């Protein structure tokens, strides 16, 4: 606490859970965009991670509302947002946008994995039951039906991109439209959130794909990761430029709120915002990815660079979420002081819960993979692993 803060501002009301929520939806939106690169824009080299990215988008999407539920004062009333949505509120859109997007991703996945699920349904055990229920007990597939599915998938992938932007842009809008908060109130917030979402989505796929390949001893598809690396570089340049542009434009205008925001940046957020978010976790990945895109390193070197850059960008986006969500609440609405916030470890909205919420989707992704393989067979070549699915997969749309 420093200076004068209004008496009800002693504590920060949106905690680390609300940092996690846009982070997770960002991963969803980004991963979906990657899958659409293949399914809609025909980037063939993305094929090894196309299905994986959609699976990742789906499991993260399932868990996106969990931090919100943990945060709500009355989680049992959560459905009020769909029962009586007040459409003058940006937040009221959440229930319907989220549900529509979840349905869309689920349906796209349903079509993409139909062949795999039919194969599963022909097998035995627990997964057979799951597959039959998931398939609505229709086990028929033919060349004609596959062609139909392919058209539907393309349509859904196309529809999904604006939906992903809507879902994530809405989160940015949620913050950007709060006129009471000078650190949030900018129309750029909406755009920044979308681009940083794409960055985090691509980064988590590179990170996770390389990790799985390494653990299983698969050969990493160089064309795929190099292409992803270039996309990552491009999107991170846009995202970071916008983030810098936002703060520079406030600073240049020198309006009333800059006095307190300058103190916020120079003092309260200096380490997490200037040092970490920009100097370390933006500049270093920018250089690494730039080098990797411009020079032809050996595969092992290139992969290491990419992996490190991806991890750093994952952290960068998390830092950006933190600096926006928490940073904005540190400024008192009196413009005269700052409150402070540090999450506890074992409290309800603490770090332990955050880590658990963030980890579950990865476990679920593994289960998903046990059900139907998330990677095409050629991506799993050279496997020594136990993770190899029982049923070999063949065709991929």
């Amino acid at each position, binding site marked *: 606490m420093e200076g004068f803060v209004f008496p009800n501002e002693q504590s920060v009301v949106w905690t680390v859970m609300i940092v996690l929520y846009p982070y997770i939806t960002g991963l969803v939106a980004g991963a979906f965009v990657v899958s659409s690169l293949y399914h809609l824009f025909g980037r063939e080299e993305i094929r090894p991670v196309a299905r994986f990215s959609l699976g990742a988008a789906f499991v993260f999407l399932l868990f996106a509302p969990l931090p919100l539920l943990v945060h*709500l*004062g*009355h989680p049992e009333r959560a459905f*009020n*947002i769909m029962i009586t949505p007040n459409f*003058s509120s*940006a937040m009221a859109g959440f229930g319907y946008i989220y549900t529509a997007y979840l349905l869309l991703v689920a349906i796209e996945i349903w079509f993409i994995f139909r062949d795999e699920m039919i194969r599963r349904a022909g097998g035995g055990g627990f997964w057979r039951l799951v597959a039959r229920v998931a398939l609505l007990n229709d086990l028929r597939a033919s060349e004609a039906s596959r062609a139909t599915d392919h058209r539907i998938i393309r349509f859904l992938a196309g529809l999904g991109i604006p939906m992903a932007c809507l879902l994530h842009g809405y989160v940015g809008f949620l913050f950007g439209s709060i006129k*009471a908060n000078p650190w949030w109130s900018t129309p750029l917030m909406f755009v920044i959130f979308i681009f940083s979402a794409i960055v985090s989505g691509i980064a988590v796929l590179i990170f996770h794909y390389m990790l799985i390949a390494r653990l299983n001893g698969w050969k990493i598809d160089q064309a795929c990761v190099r292409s992803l690396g270039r996309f990552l570089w491009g999107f991170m340049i846009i995202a970071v430029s916008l983030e810098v542009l936002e703060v520079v434009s406030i600073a240049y205008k020198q309006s009333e709120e800059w006095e307190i925001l300058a103190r916020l940046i120079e003092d309260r957020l200096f380490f997490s915002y200037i040092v970490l978010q920009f100097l370390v976790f933006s500049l270093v990945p920018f250089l690494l990815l730039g080098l990797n895109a411009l020079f032809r390193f050996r595969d092992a070197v290139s992969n290491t660079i990419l992996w490190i850059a991806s991890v750093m960008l994952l952290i960068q986006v998390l830092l950006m979420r933190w600096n926006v969500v928490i940073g904005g609440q540190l400024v008192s609405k*009196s413009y*005269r002081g700052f409150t402070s916030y540090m999450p506890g470890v074992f409290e309800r909205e603490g770090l332990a819960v955050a880590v658990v919420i963030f980890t579950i989707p990865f476990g679920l992704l593994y289960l998903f993979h046990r059900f139907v393989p998330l990677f095409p067979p050629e991506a799993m070549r050279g496997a020594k692993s136990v993770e190899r699915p029982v049923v070999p997969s063949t065709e991929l749309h």
Partner: protein
Amino acid sequence: MSVPPDDPADRRRFLRVVVQSAGGFFFVGCLADSEDAGSPAPPGGAAYDWDKFYWAYAVDTDRCIGCGSCMRACRAENDVPEGFYRTWVERFEVDAAEEAHVDIATGRSASFDRDALPPTAGRRKSFFVPKLCNHCKNSVCSQVCPVGASYQTRDGVVLVDAQHCVGCAYCVQACPYATRFINPRSHIADKCTFCYHRITVGLPPACVLVCPTKARMYGNLKDRQDELQAILHRRRYMLLKPELGTNPKCYYLGLDLEVV
């Protein structure tokens, strides 16, 4: 689905469910006229016709002596949890360098025990400013409530529906005056209710009642004989953060530039 029930009230409810199902996503418009009665009876019954009132508040900062009676009364009247405030009194002390130092009296006694600045600071001026919910005409908090739990009554009071609020705290973020908080006991958004349980039975809000110097005033803007209107017509007043377009109904007489 079953046959419509016999009881008229039940049938009305059943019909409403059907119609609202039918409304689907477009239900916003059909909520109000789905009841068979034309216009619903006012909530106060015969004793209180809310169409005759439009409540407003005024604070004369010159008169405030910073005694904290309002804060103590509000806490007692509304059972406000310790550490949170539906109303509070800020003290401004401007030093020789024209720097304003602001603080509030906290705790159960809500009493200022000493001057904020030492005598050596060369105090230029100092004064008190009471704060409370501004009951804005264009209230951001009720705009951003995702479930319609924050709303404005027809008589101009911004309230929270304790049974419907989900506790998302979006309104807490959106209120430019920081008058809202999440109640640690009920876990819903909490704020000044303009003592709605008092003004609707003809009593003044607790803070107005106990103010020893009449620094706090309230009145009905629909009544031309109302004393508050006379004051607002006679005196010059200012609003808090008027540039945000919230149109507060809490009028400040003698407000200093330092106050936000």
